[in-house]
């Protein structure tokens, strides 16, 4: 194997080692997760206690308004909350950190296919983060057109004043470039660098999820990149792609084109975020049930089917744009079709648990949490996909509750499960199980209260982006519920600090733990911490699938590593 000699700079800063880059993405994602979370807390304060001064930090943050969040700041907050959570928290955590860390280790590769491109990808992402954060220093503040930034809100003429939207667009283009570099790397790595015997249907489902997410990234990020470049040209040199009506100087463009381009990317994007979680959950349920994943191939094929279908459903975000009813119905049909493959792997998860010997470790609790919150998120999606129901529910808090169940709750629980599970491999130390369980139960109860009741307020008619719900008579009865949602959201936030403390405490205090604490079968557990640059001493050879648990023909242990040649060869004959 290739031996790498690293200086301080090439080891920690401009590292080309996929594990270090994974950790860099991990810290970046964690920082933005708390940043976006803090914005969510402030948003909830305004919705629960409208136009009251924010306690403690309010006077210091907004002295001119007496500590009250004014409407402009509120708009900036929900815009940046969405943008940051989707592109700067979940994407770096799941695809950046775990994609980088897991793919080469789980398929038995020494590194990514293009290590230098991998390094450039992270630093492009870092630059994008600086650009995004710099927009806060603008005189009129950062972007405030919502995370979708539809024109004309994001157009210079008649849109939001200031440069915030322009900087937002530049940051997103840079972020898209980083994502595309990652996609090239991940796909090539999976296609090319699998160890001998690691056939596609022997890969762990986590790798399947990350691989499929990368394919979606490769296909759809270029689409939004082109759209964003057109938007940037509109914002800077005065082209008129998305400018219509009286705002246009001459022959008008069409803002609807941006919505199409945005959602052609935007709908697959939600699958990009959740595919890794589906894969990770499928694997973890198997590990902690000590049972092979039920219907492994069906799960892999069902996830691939979702990937294919996801490109045909973007119109369901645009039912209220005056779309032809026939087209609306077609999009509804295609969207509802997705529930078939989704139900297939969902039932497979239950099948894995069925009569398993379940170990309630922290990663397992979070994985089972994913089953619950993804189930609710998926079921409420059916209402949004149906044209008739959606025309009523469109742009209400019901939609917010729905996509937070799938994206915030499912994806975050999946990320937490992954962090608790792979922490011993990334940092050599196991996170404290007791704090982990408090973190789980605290988050589980509060997250369900918050997002379920958001759907209730939405069903009662509360619009998703209004500044002060108590200004409207028909929403006044909801003010008590809004207040309770805020209180539970604060507790949800507090439990995340427990998680952060657990991470910092474990890294600084705990002892190095054993190589394979969960008795898992996949390849990353065969190497000792710290894993050298180059990973495996010799190329592993793979004989078994990723879920060989509780085989009746092995007596002394209930698992069999993917590269462990069994002594009793009875099964192979």
């Amino acid at each position, binding site marked *: 194997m290739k031996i790498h000699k690293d200086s301080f700079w090439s080891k920690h800063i401009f590292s080309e080692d996929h594990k270090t880059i994974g950790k860099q993405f991990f810290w970046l994602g964690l920082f933005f997760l708390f940043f976006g979370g803090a914005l969510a807390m402030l948003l909830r304060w305004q919705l629960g206690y409208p136009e009251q001064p924010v306690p403690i930090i309010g006077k210091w943050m907004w002295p001119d308004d007496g500590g009250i969040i004014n409407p402009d700041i509120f708009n900036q907050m929900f815009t940046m909350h969405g943008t940051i959570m989707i592109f700067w928290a979940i994407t770096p955590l799941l695809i950046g950190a775990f994609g980088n860390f897991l793919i080469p280790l789980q398929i038995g590769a020494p590194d990514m296919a293009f290590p230098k491109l991998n390094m450039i990808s992270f630093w492009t992402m870092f630059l994008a983060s600086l650009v995004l954060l710099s927009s806060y220093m603008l005189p009129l503040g950062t972007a405030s057109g919502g995370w979708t930034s539809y024109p004309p809100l994001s157009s210079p003429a008649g849109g939001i004043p200031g440069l915030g939207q322009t900087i937002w667009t530049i940051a997103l283009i840079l972020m898209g470039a980083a994502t595309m570099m990652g996609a090239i790397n991940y796909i090539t790595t999976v296609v090319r660098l699998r160890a*001998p015997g690691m056939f596609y249907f022997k890969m762990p489902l986590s790798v399947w999820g990350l691989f499929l997410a990368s394919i979606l990234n490769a296909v759809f990020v270029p689409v939004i990149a082109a759209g964003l470049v057109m938007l940037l040209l509109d914002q800077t040199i005065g082209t008129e*792609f998305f400018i219509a009506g009286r705002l246009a100087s001459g022959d008008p463009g069409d803002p609807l084109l941006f919505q199409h381009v945005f959602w052609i990317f935007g709908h697959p994007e939600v699958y990009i975020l959740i595919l890794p979680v589906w894969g990770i959950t499928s694997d973890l349920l198997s590990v902690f049930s000590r049972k092979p994943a039920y219907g492994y191939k069906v799960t892999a094929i069902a996830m691939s089917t979702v990937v294919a279908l996801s490109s045909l459903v973007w119109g369901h975000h645009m039912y209220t744009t005056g779309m032809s009813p026939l087209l609306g119905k077609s999009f509804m049909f295609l969207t509802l079709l997705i529930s078939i493959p989704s139900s297939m792997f969902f039932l497979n998860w239950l099948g894995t648990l069925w009569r398993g010997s379940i170990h309630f470790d922290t990663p397992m609790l979070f994985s089972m949490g994913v089953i619950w919150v993804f189930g609710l998120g998926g079921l409420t999606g059916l209402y949004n996909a149906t044209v008739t129901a959606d025309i009523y529910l469109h742009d209400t808090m019901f939609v917010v509750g729905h996509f937070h169940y799938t994206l915030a709750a499912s994806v975050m629980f999946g990320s937490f499960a992954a962090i608790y599970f792979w922490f011993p491999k990334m940092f050599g130390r196991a996170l404290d199980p007791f704090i982990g369980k408090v973190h789980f139960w605290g988050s589980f109860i509060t997250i369900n209260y918050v997002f379920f009741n958001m759907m209730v307020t939405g069903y009662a008619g509360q619009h998703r982006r209004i500044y002060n719900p108590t200004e409207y008579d028909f929403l006044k009865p909801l003010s008590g519920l809004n207040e309770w949602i805020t209180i539970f959201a604060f507790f949800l936030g507090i439990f995340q600090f427990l998680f952060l403390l657990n991470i910092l405490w474990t890294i600084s205090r705990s002892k190095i733990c054993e190589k394979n604490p969960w008795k898992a079968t996949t390849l990353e557990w065969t190497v000792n911490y710290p894993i050298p640059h180059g990973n495996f001493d010799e190329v592993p050879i793979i004989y078994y699938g990723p879920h060989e648990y509780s085989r009746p023909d092995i007596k002394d242990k209930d698992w069999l590593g993917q590269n462990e040649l069994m002594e009793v060869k009875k099964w192979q004959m």
Partner: protein
Amino acid sequence: MNHTITNYDPFGNASTGKLGMWLFLVMDALTFATILSGGLYLRLRTDLWPNAGEILNIPLTSFNTFLLIISSFTMVLALNSARSKDIDNLKLFLSLTILGGVTFLGIQVYEYGHFIVGGPALENALLQAGFSGHSSLTWNTGVYGSTFYATTSFHGLHVLTGVIYLSVILFNVSKGVGLEAYYDRIEIAGLFWHFVDLVWILVFTIIYLI
């Protein structure tokens, strides 16, 4: 123990770098697809769109198209020389390919200059096409101007990238790299160049001819 397990690889002997380039080209093709289909969408939604040849100079651009196709041909000849380790011909054909790209860019700059400076003839042509009060065609001249400049300049940037890319290859070849190992690099650069030419056929058809 069976140590001779080999994974089935649908891409056969293609190098990892070539696989990466193909993936990049897929992504680049989708970017062009978005820009081109976005332009067609906007064209369907507006009444104000000149007919083919009313404003854009088709004969001049046809010559440009011819140049790019020829440069693709010289690129193939360069690759062929690299395969037979014929350094002199390799340098010649690479230079001709670069020359083709540079001339293409020069003509494009001339075309842009002609439109931006404008004049009575262009004003008359624009008036006939329905654009009243414009003496020049810029990216601000309605959505037509925006589409024309965005699409062609995005392609022009690709030609520029290709010219720089091939110049680096030519520089390395002149410095005397081992062609055995470098052949793959030349082939990958060639892939990019052919892609840029291929996309131009679509841009030419959609922006100029229809």
